[in-house]
């Protein structure tokens, strides 16, 4: 911020003449950004007080002005114009005059300011938001359809698939994601076992902790935790990668070289997700059960053998299969949302960050919706 020192006035202004006749206003000293506002007030007050028929502004006494000073003079001229007072400038041979001419010409040439969008009412906004939400859902579904179609086509012609990329993303999502997925599921297993044992111990039903952990981890928490972690790690990376390529004209370059960006960029990501998410889910399940085992053996006086036998009895093949199917559905959601948000990027680097965030938020949201749908279906099928 600029500090104003009202007492230190850098310019001088004096006038001669009286109401109804031509006045001469003489300026002296410096007129800069600091004086923009005081000068505005003072000069308009002066115009009001004088009420002249015409004004001659004499700049010959000025030592210097900056561009804000020039703007102040232009404003004064415009103000005089509004009141129907012709204003002539004299003594503008020096620096002040040259800068005034430059600023005057440039601001005069600049096109009129862009129109601001009209503020819209509540209902209008609600309607617009609804329409844009629906359109977004539509876009999402169209994209998903196109991606699945491209993937199916690639599977029919496997030579067209960029397998090196598939392996690369498998390593990034799978190998690199393995430690965090395992750790979180292990801790989750610990926590659930500990919490539920507090209740079950009251009924002497310690052993059933194994059932509870096995079912809740394999049916719900394993797939969903894995999916959320993969969405956070890989979904955002997909959006950022494709978004950056969009900004750098790399996607345009691919198109002009005859590549289908969908096949080139999205199919390897989807294939990698389909391969890796179920495997990570299985590991998440195993580590969750391991967490339960640790608490069961250490805190509940169960033997490892009894705990595992109980776990084995609790899990059915359809339940495990359902968990893997779920993982595949989540994989499709993560890959499509990530890629679609990336392709939607327009503009600059800030849009890339926004796309990555939106990819994570949207895919987690969709994962939870899909999971609820699964719960309903499983309920009806009795799996």
């Amino acid at each position, binding site marked *: 911020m600029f500090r104003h020192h009202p007492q230190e006035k850098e310019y001088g202004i004096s006038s001669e003449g009286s109401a109804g006749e031509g006045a001469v206003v003489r300026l002296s000293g410096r007129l800069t950004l600091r004086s923009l506002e005081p000068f505005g007030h003072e000069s308009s007050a002066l115009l009001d007080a004088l009420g002249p028929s015409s004004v001659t502004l004499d700049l010959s006494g000025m030592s210097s002005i900056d561009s804000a000073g020039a703007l102040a003079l232009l404003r004064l001229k415009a103000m005089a114009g509004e009141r129907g007072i012709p204003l002539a400038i004299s003594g503008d041979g020096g620096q002040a005059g040259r800068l005034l001419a430059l600023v005057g010409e440039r601001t005069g040439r600049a096109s009129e300011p862009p129109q601001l969008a009209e503020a819209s009412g509540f209902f209008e906004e609600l309607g617009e938001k609804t329409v844009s939400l629906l359109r977004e859902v539509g876009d999402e579904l169209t994209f998903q359809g196109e991606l699945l179609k491209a993937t199916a086509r690639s599977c029919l012609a496997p030579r067209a698939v960029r397998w090196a990329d598939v392996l690369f993303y498998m390593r990034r999502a799978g190998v690199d994601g393995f430690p965090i997925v395992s750790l979180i599921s292990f801790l989750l297993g610990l926590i659930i076992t500990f919490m539920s044992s507090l209740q079950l111990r009251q009924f002497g039903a310690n052993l059933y902790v194994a059932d509870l952990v096995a079912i809740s981890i394999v049916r719900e928490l394993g797939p969903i935790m894995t999916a959320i972690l993969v969405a956070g790690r890989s979904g955002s990376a997909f959006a950022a990668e494709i978004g950056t390529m969009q900004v750098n004209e790399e996607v345009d370059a691919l198109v002009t*070289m005859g590549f289908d960006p969908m096949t080139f960029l999205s199919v390897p990501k989807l294939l990698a997700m389909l391969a890796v998410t179920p495997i990570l889910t299985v590991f998440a399940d195993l580590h969750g059960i391991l967490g339960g085992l640790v608490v069961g053996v250490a805190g509940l006086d169960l033997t490892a053998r009894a705990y595992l036998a109980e776990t084995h009895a609790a899990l059915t093949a359809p339940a495990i299969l359902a968990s893997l199917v779920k993982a595949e559905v989540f994989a499709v959601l993560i890959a499509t949302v990530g890629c679609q948000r990336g392709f939607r990027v327009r503009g600059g680097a800030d849009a890339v960050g926004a796309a990555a965030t939106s990819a994570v938020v949207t895919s987690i949201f969709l994962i939870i919706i899909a999971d609820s749908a699964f719960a309903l279906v499983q309920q009806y099928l009795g799996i």
Partner: protein
Amino acid sequence: MNLAPPAPGTPVIEVDGLTAGYGDRILFRDVSFRVLAGEVFVILGGSGCGKSTLLKLLIGLLRPHSGSIRVLGHDIVSGDEKGMRAVRSRIGVLFQAGGLLNSMTVGENVALPLAEHTHLSPAAIGELVRMKLALVDLSHAPGLLPSEISGGMKKRAGLARALALDPHLLFLDEPSAGLDPVTSIELDLLIRSLNEGTGSTMVLVTHELDSIFRIAHRVIFLDREARGIIAEGDPRELRDRSADPRVSDFLNRRAPSRNG
């Protein structure tokens, strides 16, 4: 689809009644022009008037609001995808920022179109890549990533990739921007000798006046306010005879004359 090079003098690009822009913002209104086979055709105009946009329209990356665009005899606005693919295998594009794929080395970038559109052995592709890189004086850089090379080198690598398939039609967006004068002259000479040697058609966007007078056969002059072409013809003739101050000021490197 006829894949032979177009006969010299026949139109390779035909634009009729083109109206285009971004959303509500119209950049071109009812623009028509032709580019003939074998020409070095330069699109001129002030910064932000839509030169890159016009280039993107011509290669089918943007869709116009209305009007027709035919490239190498194929209607790229309403034509089928198969024809579009054939067109794409015969054009090369250098984007304003190079457009290199950042995840691949310079050499892999140049090899990309060769691997996609030909059935050559990896060894033959490698040899072609070395040749194209030598053309743009980047023989030392095939193993570098785009993030490891300078802006001017990216331009040249992008040009090598655009040249990979010996296209009949080459689109270059500011090829010599950001290059030193010597490299820039060498690039002009390269463009000129490619044009003369292979008969390929060049569509360029450039601001370099020296370069325009050295290589351009014909220029069109775009203007933001006019939303279209305000002059068309031989650049020397326009420089000496154009009555439009916007054109003659530009070509004579003068500050615009402002009166009033």
